[in-house]
């Protein structure tokens, strides 16, 4: 049983984790090097855009880890016990990841375009597109000056909120809050490790987690608006922060399912006992999350489609034309149809191998979803898979993801993979019948 092989597991999995971390670091260095090299060819403006898009996926994994960690403290459940340590490791990446954001944002707002003569070729005024000299177009005042009358009015009204100083303050406050939450929850974990579990410690963790989930929702409302929605400063959608934040949960859950299976394959049997139950639970959770993602994403589309407002509709026009319609279709199938039908099959969610495949697939789709959310802001109705810019987007995405994975895996090996003193440690399923019993007709 899992609990007995506790410290054994870390010892057995350690070489594997360290090897994965080393690979991740190599990939990160190569891919980020390629991004910078391509940036010098294609333009540093597009490079910062690639980095911002690539940043969102690992950022979402870190934040999703924090929320799932808080949720499992509040809801209990066996999945929380086995995923707690990786989730805590995920939250410990937040300080580094705050620094990475500061670097990207600083570059994007200062040295953004090292070659001012460079302009993205397709400039569709009618699609609210802006060829900006800053990573976030509202920061480029000259550009705002030259917008059409109506659009200018809309954006100027928003400048009281969308200005660099206030933007930086919001980001700093948000990161401080998240890092403090992560520190508090990690401190509870360390205390539990040292002192043993107690109702007092659990209450403490719940006192952090309950309000923490609310604080996360509020901060993510601002952060998703600032970092992603404001790339199209005229557009707005009240559903967008929900999609953005919930995508983080889905991504973090899939990453943890994947990590769980990868670390244990060959060490533990995933198809029996507690693991079997856990695989089923994780499969059901991912299925539920996938359905909810579809619900909120389609709601946004349906509302914008039926309202048909000049400020909102360009968002979808930009994503259903000039090559983007294929990405949209890929998202519909890859993030909903395929995972939904595959996870409906009960055998799939009971087999660790297949669960890991589905989780890995959804993780790839998470990147495509974020790419779909952000990239058309810079290239509305214009998607060319075989262009240096797309290659640079992919390189930046792979590079930043691998960099985050390296930090995450280094944090993962610091403490036990299963919390040694968790209160759920002793909880056993009510009864498990061994499946290997031969049924022999030996009666009479």
């Amino acid at each position: 049983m899992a609990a007995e092989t506790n410290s054994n597991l870390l010892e057995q999995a350690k070489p594997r984790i360290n090897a994965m971390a080393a690979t991740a670091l190599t990939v990160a260095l190569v891919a980020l090097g390629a991004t910078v090299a391509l940036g010098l060819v294609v333009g540093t403006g597009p490079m910062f855009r690639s980095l911002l898009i690539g940043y969102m996926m690992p950022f979402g994994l870190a934040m999703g880890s924090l929320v799932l960690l808080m949720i499992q403290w509040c809801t209990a459940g066996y999945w929380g016990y086995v995923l707690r340590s990786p989730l805590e490791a995920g939250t410990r990446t937040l300080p580094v990841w705050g620094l990475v954001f500061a670097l990207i944002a600083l570059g994007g707002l200062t040295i953004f375009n090292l070659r001012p003569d460079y302009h993205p070729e397709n400039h569709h005024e009618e699609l609210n597109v802006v060829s900006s000299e800053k990573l976030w177009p509202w920061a480029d005042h000259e550009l705002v000056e030259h917008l059409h009358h109506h659009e200018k009015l809309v954006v100027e009204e928003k400048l009281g909120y969308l200005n660099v100083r206030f933007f930086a303050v919001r980001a700093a406050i948000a990161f401080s809050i998240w890092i403090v939450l992560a520190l508090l929850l990690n401190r509870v974990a360390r205390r539990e490790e040292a002192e043993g579990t107690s109702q007092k410690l659990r209450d403490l963790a719940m006192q952090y987690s309950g309000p923490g989930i609310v604080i996360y929702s509020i901060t993510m409302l601002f952060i998703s608006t600032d970092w992603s929605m404001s790339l199209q400063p005229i557009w707005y959608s009240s559903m967008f922060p929900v999609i953005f934040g919930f995508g983080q949960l889905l991504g973090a859950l899939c990453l943890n399912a994947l990590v769980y299976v990868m670390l244990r394959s060959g060490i533990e049997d995933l198809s029996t006992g507690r693991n079997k139950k856990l695989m089923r639970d994780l499969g059901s959770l991912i299925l539920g999350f996938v359905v909810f993602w579809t619900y909120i994403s389609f709601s946004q589309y349906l509302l914008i489609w039926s309202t048909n407002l000049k400020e909102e509709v360009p968002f979808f026009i930009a994503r259903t034309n000039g090559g983007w319609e294929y990405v949209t279709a890929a998202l519909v199938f890859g993030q909903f149809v395929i995972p939904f039908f595959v996870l409906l099959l009960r055998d799939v969610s009971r087999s660790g191998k297949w669960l890991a495949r589905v989780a890995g697939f959804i993780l790839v789709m998470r990147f495509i979803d974020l790419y779909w959310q952000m990239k058309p802001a810079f290239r509305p109705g214009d998607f060319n898979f075989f262009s240096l810019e797309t290659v640079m987007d992919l390189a930046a995405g792979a590079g930043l993801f691998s960099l985050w994975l390296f930090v995450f895996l280094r944090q993962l090996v610091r403490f036990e993979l299963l919390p040694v003193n968790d209160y759920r440690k002793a909880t056993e399923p009510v009864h498990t019948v061994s499946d290997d019993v031969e049924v022999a007709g030996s009666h009479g």
Partner: protein
Amino acid sequence: MGAAPAKMASFGLLAEFDNPQALVDAADRARREGFVKMEGYSPFPVEGLREALGQKRTLMPVAIFFGGITGTITGFMLQTLTSGGLPAEWDAWIPFNQWFSYRLNIAGRPFFSWQAFVPPMFELTILFAAFTAVFGMLAINGYPRLNHPLFEVPEFGRASVDRFFLCIESEDKLYDNEKTREFLKNLKPLTISEVPA
């Protein structure tokens, strides 16, 4: 193996237990012994009982799935056929495309506005899936049969309160009134009752 006349005489043998674990253990033993036609009865779902009884999965999930798909298609047809059919370019492939056209003009949107059709399609998917689940459940429980031989056993009333029952049915190939009763005795139940057919 079993005595043929005894098979006709009763529905089966019913063993009573006072906790879920005892029932699961008993079912596990019975399955290993080779019994197939048996059923467990408990006031609440007991974890592991189905595996212990060696029960196969029912086909209900598959039926519910297709019930849901039927709902989706119904929802789609219901709205498409009553609002001008598919766009005109489909006329060549679908002869009846515009037979039921009412051409409802809603806020000047296209007649075939699939985006707006999705919520009713979703609702009908859920409705048809739920109907399949409920009526399918009644069907596989033998509805409209309202009586069951087990109701003849007075002790069985507590199956919905605080007792757990294992019934080995006489249809089982290994069933033998005396030998099966001996076997059940070894499981140390509170009572063993013969269920009249």
